[in-house]
């Protein structure tokens, strides 16, 4: 199983690098804005707003690039779920993470040219990339153009609801990011997956 696979083409690596940088910038500026106060600011409020807006728009463009790239190059095939027996496979993979791994067992779903992600990875990438990220983009763009938002939704301010949804989606992406980066350290050696996303080659 030591064959070398070219799994992350250049466009995907570029997308991923920009995506990671932008998301980090968005999380940082988002936290500053949300916890603004008069006495101590890490960064001026209006600057943080500008950074957040610019990063958000770039992230949206980058996201389009991701979708297009996936469809055109066929990378999307790694994201297609086989529903049958999914639950069993998820449990199998969880068991590996919770027990097998510590006993030196082999991963139940080794990477090959038709299977880039294990079932847990796949589900979490689908949820992150096709639910959370679109949600954060749509609500974020709506907040930049507040005139597009319904002024009142069942007695609440439409902007208020949109902003809450936006913050929640952003928060979930942050949680995804933590887990994602941590799970990537489970390669052997620890740096293996990180090397892959830089060089493109899975070893």
């Amino acid at each position, binding site marked *: 199983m030591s064959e070398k696979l070219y799994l992350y083409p250049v466009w995907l690596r570029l997308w991923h690098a920009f995506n990671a940088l932008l998301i980090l910038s968005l999380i940082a500026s988002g936290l500053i804005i949300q916890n603004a106060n008069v006495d101590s600011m890490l960064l001026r409020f209006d600057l943080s707003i500008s950074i957040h807006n610019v990063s958000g728009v770039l992230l949206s463009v980058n996201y389009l690039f991701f979708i297009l790239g996936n469809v055109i190059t066929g990378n999307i095939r790694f994201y297609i779920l086989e529903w049958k027996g999914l639950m069993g496979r998820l449990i199998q993979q969880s068991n590996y993470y919770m027990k097998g791994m510590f006993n030196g067992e082999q991963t139940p779903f080794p990477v090959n040219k038709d299977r880039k992600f294990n079932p847990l990875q796949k589900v979490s990438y689908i949820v992150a990339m096709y639910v959370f990220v679109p949600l954060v983009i749509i609500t974020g763009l709506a907040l930049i153009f507040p005139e597009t938002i319904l002024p009142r939704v069942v007695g609440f301010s439409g*902007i*208020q609801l949109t902003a809450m949804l936006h913050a929640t989606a952003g928060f979930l992406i942050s*949680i995804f990011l933590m887990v994602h980066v941590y799970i990537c350290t489970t390669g052997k050696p620890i740096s293996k997956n990180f090397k892959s996303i830089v060089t493109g080659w899975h070893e």
Partner: protein
Amino acid sequence: MTKHKWMLWGMLFAICTPFALIASDETREAPLRFEENKHCFQCHSQKFYTYENEVTGKTDRKAMNPNFVYSPEAFYEGVHRNFACTDCHSPDYETFPHQAELRFEEMYQCLDCHGGDPTYAKYNFEVVEEEFHKSVHSTRHSEDFNCWMCHNPHSYKRMTAGDHSISEIVKYHNQTCMGCHADSYNFQRISDDVKPSLQNIHSFLPNFELHFSSVRCIECHTSKLDTLWVKHNILPKEEAVRNCVECHSTNTLLMGSLYKYQNLASRKERGFLNSVILNEAYVIGANTNKFMNLGSYIIFGLTLLGIIIHTIFRLKK
């Protein structure tokens, strides 16, 4: 019906009565001097007016000076709705053509009627006047700029009297200022200066439209130390609020000004300080919801804990 049911009905009635009273406040009785004023409004609410020409014996039809045209609806919604025109203007206006000297008539000021009157103590007329005299409007234009400039004698109404949302209040108050600052005709009645548009002046604010429809001009243009709900001391522009976090933070200045009246009102009703902000507008930085914050700390903590435990197991192996 059982005794319990009667008690429930009684309670329901007791709870609803105050609301019914508040609601009935809106449908107030007919204005006292409605009939008398019809005569003046016959001409002063129309673009064109007619009168019998005693010399030619014909009926003349003429165009009315548009500045002398007032809406009766607005007049009868205003605070002085029970007034006859001739309470403030000379009764000699009953005759037409109006006598030329009437033009020199001196108008009452608010304090002529409201000064020292305990009925109006809650409006703090004396304090307001003092504040107004400190404002740029008064200091730079002395007598020509008086209370009537903003308190249109023929339509001024109190926004706190009705059940108005914050955005309606903001709109009404800002229109008062924009009446001059976004309308060069009115502005030049007082000053020959030509000013850049409000949008240009405030280009430092993103979402100009949204800001101007959700905060009042006076939030930024008056002193924070002033405790009145409608602050009257407009400061020179150098002292205006420019720092975003004055509003965009949990201790937002809006709590002590714009949201103050509604907060007091809603605290009485619901005992929930943040209720207004929560429902009316989303002020980034100010709307941190306690429960959402707590929830996110917990989830974040648990994730971190999970990662740490997992790492320990990996290391032990």
